[in-house]
């Protein structure tokens, strides 16, 4: 819809065509983009998706709606459509709400049911965000309650410290977790981070939230066996607070403007855990992003929703070696990267060349026992990154002409970043090996879990569709109840 509004603002009359499944989404996006009256025409999802496969199958549908599309272009605008009066600020209700019951349980149930009906909940019972509870949550940070962090997509609601605190209370979080939650929202509200795609796209994408540094231990986060599972209050309520804050501040709702076709895996808490600093022989991940190792940071990364993780095995059933796991990792990356190599020749889905196509980021999670083995083999994070990057490559002679052409086109289009062009220029010759990853830094190595050693990874586009990045590390600051993150 933003593209249609862009063209209309350039003086071109037009019509946005959407399937009926996306009709609410289109109407909502028209308002979000400041042109509520932009004309959009719905067509039958049941017909369009099935029939669009060929010119002949789609013909009857186009014949049926052709005149309707033309009407949208030629029928003069009504006075309602040309109304450019100011849209008032939208608070979606009063600042405080009152629920009454014959008993505490009844009032509480009324609150929970009402919030869910208003589309302010995530389907699980919530803690009532009473003024006292909000004040309690705010004791966890030095930051002022009215401080604005930015806005959250798709509806660009304003994220203040107070609104984040309300959602954190509803999630069941404790005040000492609050600085971590704030830092995650700082990443999501950063204009460089593509929160629109991960929160609204049909692809059922998700978020990986990784806490690094001493604060994870102070919060008793689970960084060991079962770190992505239930039972740990910090892991689960930090993730749930982010879930509720994005839902309520960005104002998403399934099938309305959150179009994730299968919903989102780990829908209530995302994938939230802490790195295992006690057992890891390496520095925490955020050190590789330029932060001091002793600092506490949180990393937020978008992840694919389909086939969300690739398991490289290890574990306690079969015997394994660190070399064997590395081989499987390399083999998986070789195959998955090769599948999308021809996409390097496409400009991409968004404004940044290569957005949403080819060349992924890989967020690899290694268990400490395995990392000990890699350390014995001489690998620190950088060396292991380099080793994987070096091995995820193919001899020039093995590439098809289409693949070579795609890389060359990608270099012309800027899909291959300028600083990497020389690497590929040198590699595209007989006798050379051609990397299938854009750069070693596209492999992000985290350490969590315990013994036995094993490894798995999530992935996502190196460049997201709508803005510049889908992985961001933020320092945790302003904490009042922990020694770390102050």
């Amino acid at each position, binding site marked *: 819809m933003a*593209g249609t509004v862009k063209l209309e603002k350039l003086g071109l009359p037009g019509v946005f065509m959407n399937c009926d499944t996306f009709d609410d989404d289109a109407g909502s996006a028209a308002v979000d983009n400041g042109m509520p009256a932009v004309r959009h025409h719905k067509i039958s999802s049941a017909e369009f998706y099935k029939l669009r496969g060929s010119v002949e199958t789609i013909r009857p549908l186009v014949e049926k709606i052709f005149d309707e599309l033309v009407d949208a272009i030629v029928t003069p605008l009504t006075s309602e459509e040309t109304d450019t009066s100011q849209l008032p600020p939208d608070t979606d209700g009063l600042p405080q709400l009152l629920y009454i019951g014959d008993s505490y349980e009844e009032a509480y149930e009324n609150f929970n049911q009402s919030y869910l009906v208003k589309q302010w909940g995530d389907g699980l019972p919530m803690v009532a965000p009473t003024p006292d509870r909000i004040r309690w949550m705010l004791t966890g940070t030095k930051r002022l309650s009215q401080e604005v962090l930015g806005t959250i997509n798709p509806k660009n609601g304003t994220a203040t410290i107070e609104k984040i605190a309300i959602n954190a209370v509803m999630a069941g979080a404790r005040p000492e977790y609050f600085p971590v939650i704030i830092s995650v929202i700082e990443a999501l509200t950063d204009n460089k981070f593509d929160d629109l795609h991960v929160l609204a796209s049909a692809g059922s994408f998700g978020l990986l939230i990784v806490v690094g540094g001493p604060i994870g231990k102070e919060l008793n986060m689970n960084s060991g066996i079962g770190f992505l599972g239930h039972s740990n209050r910090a892991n689960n309520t930090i993730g749930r607070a982010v879930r509720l804050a994005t839902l309520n501040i960005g104002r998403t709702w399934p099938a309305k403007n959150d179009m994730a076709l299968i919903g989102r895996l780990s829908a209530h808490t995302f994938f939230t855990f802490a790195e295992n600093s006690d057992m890891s022989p390496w520095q925490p991940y955020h050190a590789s992003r330029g932060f001091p190792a002793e600092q506490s940071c949180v990393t937020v990364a978008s992840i694919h929703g389909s086939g969300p993780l690739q398991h490289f095995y290890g574990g306690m059933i079969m015997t394994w070696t660190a070399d064997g796991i590395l081989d499987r990792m390399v083999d998986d990356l070789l195959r998955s990267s090769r599948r999308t190599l021809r996409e390097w020749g496409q400009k991409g889905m968004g404004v940044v060349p290569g957005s949403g196509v080819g060349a992924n980021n890989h967020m690899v999670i290694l268990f400490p026992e395995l990392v000990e083995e890699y350390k014995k083999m001489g690998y620190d994070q950088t060396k292991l990154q380099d080793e994987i990057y070096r091995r995820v490559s193919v001899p020039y002679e093995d590439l098809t002409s289409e693949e070579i052409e795609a890389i060359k086109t990608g270099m012309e289009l800027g899909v291959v970043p300028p600083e990497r062009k020389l690497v590929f220029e040198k590699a595209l010759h007989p006798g050379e090996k051609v990397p299938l990853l854009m750069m070693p830094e596209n492999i992000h190595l985290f350490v969590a879990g315990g013994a036995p050693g094993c490894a798995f990874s999530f992935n996502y586009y190196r460049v997201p569709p709508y803005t510049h990045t889908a992985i961001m590390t933020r320092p945790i600051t302003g904490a009042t109840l922990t020694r770390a993150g102050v």
Partner: protein
Amino acid sequence: MNQEKIELRVLNPRGEIEAKVASSPSPRIADLSGKRIGLYSNMKQGMDNFYTVFEEIMKKKYPEATAMKVSGAFLIRDEDAEAMAKEADAFVYGVGD
């Protein structure tokens, strides 16, 4: 016996959306005769088939009309938008959703 009611006062978790001025769509064209119509699609499959038929029908009904097919990003890039605004008289925007 009158039982005392329990009151639960809670805060609104919704982010406020700032006030903004609504823009109006552009004035419409009178008809398609002699006009150039931009047909925009992103990379999702099937829109090219849709537009092929659309162009055929348009040629039959408005022989003087021409199509300007553009395929690109989900959100049309500035250079594509400016080119379409310069060369076309109206547009259809389909993204396969």
